[in-house]
């Protein structure tokens, strides 16, 4: 499980440091219920299929999403708009792309295109039976936070013959 998560954590750190130009610190992972209320405003969702099935979600609060978009587009963003959604989509896309490199070396995984969900306490329909997710909190310089949530089911590899 953690072998699937770690590439995403590394990719996230890399993308924030090199692209967004923000230093981030990774916090202690914790477990939370899928449907418990949360304080995030916008989330990018990437589905995984193959050896492991599930999703990886990057959730941000509005202020951080705006700050990132400002950095990327060079324009002040007043509120969550198309630009912000695009920027967050792009961000998660790059993270997924980088993580994919790390994952595909050792696992048979297919990574979907990212979907963006936004709105206060938005609901994410996780494609799984389990009810819990592992959240990895990140702190950006200036104290802003975001979180990477992962829920995966590792499929038992069936008996197949080459």
């Amino acid at each position, binding site marked *: 499980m*953690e072998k699937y998560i*770690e590439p995403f954590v590394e990719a996230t750190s890399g993308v924030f440091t090199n692209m967004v130009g923000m230093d981030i610190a*990774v916090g202690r992972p914790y*477990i939370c219920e899928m449907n418990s209320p949360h304080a995030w405003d916008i989330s990018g969702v990437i589905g995984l299929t193959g050896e492991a099935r599930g999703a990886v979600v990057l959730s941000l609060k509005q202020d951080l999403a705006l700050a990132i978009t400002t950095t990327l587009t060079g324009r002040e963003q007043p509120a969550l708009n198309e630009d912000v959604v695009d920027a967050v989509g792009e961000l998660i896309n790059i993270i997924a792309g980088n993580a994919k490199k790390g994952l595909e070396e050792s696992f048979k995984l297919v990574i979907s295109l990212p979907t963006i969900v936004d709105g206060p306490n938005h609901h994410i329909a996780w494609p799984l039976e389990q009810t819990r997710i*592992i959240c990895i909190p990140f702190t950006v310089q200036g104290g802003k936070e975001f979180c990477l949530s992962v829920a995966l089911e590792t499929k038992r590899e069936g008996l197949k013959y080459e």
Partner: protein
Amino acid sequence: MSKGSSNFFINLMTSGKFFREDDPEKMDMTIRYVLLNSMIFVGCTLLVLFGVESFREQAFLQGILDFSMAAITLVGFVLLRTPAPFIWSSGLTVLSFMGLCAFLVYTGGVQNSGVLWAYSFPLLAIFLLGIRLGSLLTALLGIFLGMVVLVPGFSPQKYEAAFAFRGIGVYLLVTLCTMVYEITKMNKDQRLLKLTASLKEERDQIAAMKDNLREALFLLDRQGKIQGQYSPILEAMLGKTNLTGEIFLDILSPSLSAKEKGLLEDFFAMVLEQRFDAAMLEDINPLKEFTYLPPGGTAPRTLSVTCSCLQRENGEAYLLCTLRDLTREVELRRQLEEEEKKRQQEMRALFEVVHVDPRIFEDFIQEMDYQFVHINGALKNSEEDNRQTLLEVYQYIHAVKANAVILGLSDFAEKLHSLEQEIKLIQNKEEITFQDMLHLTVEIEKVYREKDTFEQLLNRIRSFSATSSQLQEEQVLVQTLERTIKKLCHELGKQATLSVGTLEHGALQQLDFRLLKEILIQLVRNALVHGIETPEERQRKGKPAAGTIFVSLEKKGDQLCCVVGDDGNGLCFERIRQQAERRGMRIEPSKERQQLLQYIFSPGFSTQDEADLHSGRGVGLSLVKDRVYATGGSIKIATEEGKGCRFYLYFPLEKNHSVAG
């Protein structure tokens, strides 16, 4: 002769021609080249010597002839080394030699020895040009020879008849012998060709098998060297190329300990000795299944080698070895074993859980939920450092473990215990990394899932015990009625079967089970004793010998309707009236039927003349009435003379029923 000079000599004699090993004419053509070249060398040398001699004897024409012949042979030699067909050079040599022979025969040569030269011609012509062309030229020269020695005045020489015949005789003899030899050789060649072709086909088939087997076959000689004809797949399995002449043990060396190597050497020696039983050898085979570390650091493979001894005709013994790649097989076996272990664990866990009282089990799960909320809180609390968090998590996990142990959930307790060990390991580290904490979180999540499984299990046990009790109740009811019927039929000499209609699940839950059982037993007995006739009587009436007693239980609106019926005689109002009148009951003709139906439920009523164990005490129907009325229910009867009778009991469903009396 050194190698270089011997190569040069061979090259000289074969004109540098190279024939492929599988060329069927290789042997034949090589011999022809060697023969022709030898002829050229010997002939050329001789001709040069003769030429010099002839010049010294002033026989210039002869000398010129000799030299030109020598030159021609040299041209033949050069021609042989070009890609030109063999026939050009051999034809040139043979024809010029034929001319020389003709000349020598015609002129008679020194001391009339010219004829002698002709004797060697058949050999050369036939060997070099083949049987057809060679024989033709031989015949032509023979005719010329005959003409020279037999026809007077044809040549400047005079030959005696005796000499002529001898000369022709010897020529014929040489020709015949050469032809016989050549034909024999041709036949032998053809046979050899056929044999070679069939051998080649066989070899190709075997090679195809060997090359396409999924197992590698190879031979080891006494020194343990791999022989050349090994399966190509062997290279892939061992991750090494060009194995011919390699010592097999050396290749395995990095994968074996010194002791194993020693064992293996002994084992090979034992196989070669051929004194031991094959099964025994297979038992002690150290390579039955071993881990092979391929060179270049690729992933280890599981291989299996089996050996047997192969005795060759030349007395050499070889080890015939088969190498199988078991990597996939072993991997699958491991997976299967894991699955099996997991299944057994689940079964064990299930058994452990089943022994726990569901209420206690539920308490345990709630307690766990409580602990888990705390664990989450500790993990989430960013104020605390990792060590503090680990300490808290450890305590909560430990608490859960203690509870699991108390309940005898040893399997789950073991999992919690190993989680504790993991936490301790992390605690003992100099520095606790994000990876450590992530790993721990993942492991904790696994325990949560275990709890989910318990919860599902608990629900299942609940529904299972509920349905099972329901099933039990229904079964108990049906079985009781069946037993009742069986016993009574036996005693009354009647035949009857129970037919069960709808038995609504919920219905049994909503009614006092004992009460219902009691009522049903009464009505079934009643039906058997009073309703169902004897088999003889039934057959007289054209009914099947065995009667049917029908029972059903259904919800109808807010009532539960219980039907008990039979296909017997129906109520005999005549007998009921007689009985009622005997008891001093006043019956009004207008309400006769209604009165009589009420009367059968009165205590003490019985149409039986004598009381026995089953009825006749007059409690049966009155008891039913009391019980049904006590629940606030009602009774209806439908009866038809000769066809049967049905009791409809209605119970209201909104009240709790208690058994009266």
